[in-house]
């Protein structure tokens, strides 16, 4: 009995949590506000864990994560509206709106895929540059993406792009379930699952080798350029997935919401959680989302308090909440209860 319990404990827990949240949302037992906080929590987890792959595991400093999020958001929004909803610009839907439900994950993944390709904007320069210089390139990449979209009148330019709510409604009309909650939950689990597997394989550990000593990594047969490309593309692709979900939760995107401030927000989550710690990134994303909501009454003063918190964290616990360790390193007994493969 015990090995089976150990083997499937994580799966069961996830099904349980996902099931409860979906049920509560379905019964409208939790308000729309709480629900949207929960969904943003999922998006933030995707963002912080994916940025942690670059900033924590690979040891580079990327501060343009929101740019890739923006690419994902726009691509999946445009695809969704183009295919499944009547729009002033794109005209009648190309496909039957009742198919939206089945195609939705593909639309989000397509956004992620294009964002991954946009990740090459940072991956290619990373062959020769690193550290501070690469950080500047990531900022530049963020600006390039934002400015490009701001100047594309077809998709609304700086006014933004909308119409995604119709796609969400089409999904809910097909099968009456809180679909956005379900998709956000599934994609969050999917992200953590991918990253966990990537990081624990010998292949993925090549990334840590690059972080700890790039010269030794290259000499010890790690194809560093290839690993950097894969890592940057994976990281920005997942940011694109987060962006797509974000767009569909809000129902509206504009380039202004993916500027450097958003990137900084993600950076705060990564540093709060602890570098190279997957469980740290998950926990800090949850904590940060809740904190943002709790501080909402402070209004604009919020942005004084949160950076202050960061200063305090850096002063008294510079390694973050988890600091390079996973949950199972701190509580080794936990290993008895679950198994990750």
């Amino acid at each position, binding site marked *: 009995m015990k090995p089976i319990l150990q083997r499937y404990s994580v799966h069961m827990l996830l099904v349980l949590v996902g099931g409860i949240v979906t049920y509560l949302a379905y019964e409208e037992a939790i308000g729309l506000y709480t629900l949207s906080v929960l969904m943003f929590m999922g998006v933030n987890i995707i963002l912080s864990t994916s940025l942690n792959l670059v900033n924590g595991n690979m040891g580079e400093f990327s501060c343009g994560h929101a740019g890739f999020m923006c690419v994902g958001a726009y691509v999946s929004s445009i695809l969704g509206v183009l295919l499944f909803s009547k729009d002033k610009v794109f005209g009648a839907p190309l496909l039957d709106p009742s198919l939206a439900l089945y195609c939705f994950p593909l639309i989000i993944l397509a956004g992620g895929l294009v964002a991954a390709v946009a990740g090459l904007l940072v991956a290619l320069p990373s062959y020769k540059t690193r550290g501070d210089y690469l950080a500047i390139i990531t900022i530049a990449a963020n600006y390039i993406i934002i400015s490009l979209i701001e100047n594309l009148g077809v998709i609304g330019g700086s006014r933004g792009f909308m119409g995604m709510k119709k796609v969400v409604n089409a999904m809910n009309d097909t099968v009456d379930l809180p679909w956005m909650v379900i998709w956000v939950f599934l994609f969050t689990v999917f992200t953590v699952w*991918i990253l966990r*597997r*990537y990081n624990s*394989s*010998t*292949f*993925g*550990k*090549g990334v*840590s*080798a690059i972080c*700890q*000593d790039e*010269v*030794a*990594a*290259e*000499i*010890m*047969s*790690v*194809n*560093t*350029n290839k690993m950097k490309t*894969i890592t940057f593309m*994976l990281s920005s692709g997942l940011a694109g997935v987060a962006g797509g979900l974000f767009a569909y939760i809000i129902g509206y995107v504009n380039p202004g919401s993916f500027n450097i401030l958003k990137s900084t927000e993600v950076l705060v989550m990564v540093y709060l959680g602890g570098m190279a710690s997957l469980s740290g990134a998950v926990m800090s994303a949850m904590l940060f989302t809740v904190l943002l909501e709790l501080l909402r009454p402070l209004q604009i003063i919020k942005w004084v308090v949160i950076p202050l918190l960061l200063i305090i964290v850096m002063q008294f616990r510079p390694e973050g909440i988890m600091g*390079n360790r996973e949950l199972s390193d701190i509580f080794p007994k936990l290993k008895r209860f679950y198994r990750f*493969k």
Partner: protein
Amino acid sequence: MIMQTQNTTTPSAPVLEINKMTQRFGGLTAVSDFSVTLGHNEIAGLIGPNGAGKTTVFNLVSGFYQPTEGKIIINGQPTAKLKPHKVTALGVARTFQNIRLWNQMSVLDNIRVAQHGKLDYGFLQAILRSKNYFKCEERIEEEARELLKVFDLDKYADELPTNLPYGLQRKLEIVRALSEKPKLLLLDEPAAGLNSVDIQELIRLVRWIHETFDVTIWMIEHHMDVMMQLCTDIKVIDFGQTIAEGTAEHVRNHPAVITAYLGDDNI
């Protein structure tokens, strides 16, 4: 598996052949007109005063720099325009003057990650955890543990390298290089920072590696006693120029070498 005996047939091509190699950095000629041929299972040395260009020669052989002029041929294959990890795949492994282990990874992982070039699965299989993935990971772990056991490091498998004494870190770096199953092993000052007891240990270790593994060893070292005891052939360079070559005894009494190390009589 790892241990191979010496009685394999000696291939005709030399393990390393450097032909009139020159390396310039801007106006500075770091290595000039350097030639060497290392045969199968040979053990040779490279010495010279500080800044003579010894490490540059190693960096050129391991693919970090591309020589300005001349050719490097490893196991019959020219290394021109190859990235270092490709050169490693040709059968070259090296250690560094200042130890370059991955310090936040366990000793076992240090050996495992060094097998990166020999993984027979890629990104997708790592995510999907195919049968092939498990087979490959299992094989790598088994081989790594076996290698650590051979060198009596297995009890530190889960330790971080920083927690090991200095001498063992040096040893681990050599073991990590050997895990690449090289035909040519480059040791860059393996005795640097070791005390006299550790140095004797190192000499025994290098000799044992030479006898047990089917590998040509080329080393840079300042400790002459290490060179005298190990190397059959020593090359001396100064300011990038080869100034002497031969047995340890010959090199030690060579006037050019004495001048290079101690300076001229005339002041």
